[in-house]
């Protein structure tokens, strides 16, 4: 397998998981950079060019609430899970756990 193929498949694999990671991180309010920092600290490396547009898309879908706040001499847009987003996160988490449980034995061999 070439590096390009591996990169493409990694990207596909990560795409759905990143949504789950972002929704999970936004149980508490975060602005763009702090969200990225939190994900990085948790071991999920995501570049800014992917993260910021993803957060906006989720907000456009009504899964996140957002507001501009003033802090440390600069305005920042804070995001947090909306009611709809919280419901979706619960369902997606169950789905993820089921998948993970089913995948475990398959990947052991």
């Amino acid at each position, binding site marked *: 397998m070439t590096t390009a193929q591996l990169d493409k498949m990694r990207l596909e694999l990560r795409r759905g998981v990143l949504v789950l990671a972002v929704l999970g991180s936004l149980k508490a309010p975060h*602005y*763009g*950079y*702090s969200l990225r*920092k939190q994900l990085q600290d948790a071991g999920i490396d995501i*570049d*800014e*060019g*992917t993260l*910021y*547009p993803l957060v*906006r898309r989720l907000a456009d879908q009504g899964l996140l609430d957002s507001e501009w706040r003033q802090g440390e001499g*600069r*305005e*920042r*847009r804070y995001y947090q899970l909306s009611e709809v987003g919280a419901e979706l996160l619960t369902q997606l988490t169950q789905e993820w756990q089921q998948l993970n449980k089913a995948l475990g034995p398959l990947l052991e061999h």
Partner: protein
Amino acid sequence: MDLLERYLAAVQQELPADKQQDVTRELKANILDQVDALREQTPEQSDEEHLLQVLQELGPPKQMAYQFHPPQPLIRADLIPLFRFTLFMVLGIIFLINLVQSTLLWLGHEQMGLLLLLKHMGSGFIGDATLAFTAITLGFWSMSLEQKTRCTAQQSWDPLQLPQLNHRWQRISLSDVFHDLATYLFLLILIWYPLWGEVVMSVELSMGSRFLLQAFSPLLLLGIALSLWQLKQRYWTEALLKCNLVLNALLVTAILILAWTSPFFSSVPEQLSWITAEQLERSMTISLLIIALFPGWEVIRDWQRLQKVRA
């Protein structure tokens, strides 16, 4: 921080008007946060250097704008095969029509050289093709906007309606359908060409052959209808095979009648002085007999297929 403003302006330029202010405002805040973080990590570097590093990681402004607002394709992905075949079919017909038109013009004008013929053909084709391309693209674009039809089609999908096909040849490929459709359309346009085209013909058809050609138009219309039916139902059934067989049998008959029509031409152009009227008539008869072999072969093929379907 002039560089930051330049970057934001470049991103803004690629975004739709209603998103420009909001996206760049947020992007600016995020970039400045990243610069702050880098300043803490490497205080020995300047802010300009930090900013440069952040912008390089973010990527080119166009790419960043596309992430925020992904471009929408003009034509829906599932319509692309149909769009491609329609385009090729129409462009092919336009090319052939222009070829015929230019050749007739060339035969009618003694002073017209080969270069002028090519120029006439090229300019005519480019003009017509541009118009056709625009019209087809606009048509498919409007079809792409009709999302509702697509949803309804998916909801009414019933697996039990899948045809039971016992032979591989029963599946009709899109290219076959468009090939037939293009042939019928081209012949129809050609037959009625003197009515709408610029008549510069020096090779005149006789009254009898012209009348016969025009009388065969319903057959070509039937062929177009049959092709459209095949476009909707992409497999051979007994009914479809019967219709195709009858159509091809009628086409063979029509071509044979035409082959034995004498005289086929009423005049021979001066440019064709190397051939006598008699030789021209005989060439036409032989050409028509060869042409008749194609629908004739389809008659035999469909007859055999019909027996297999019935078995």
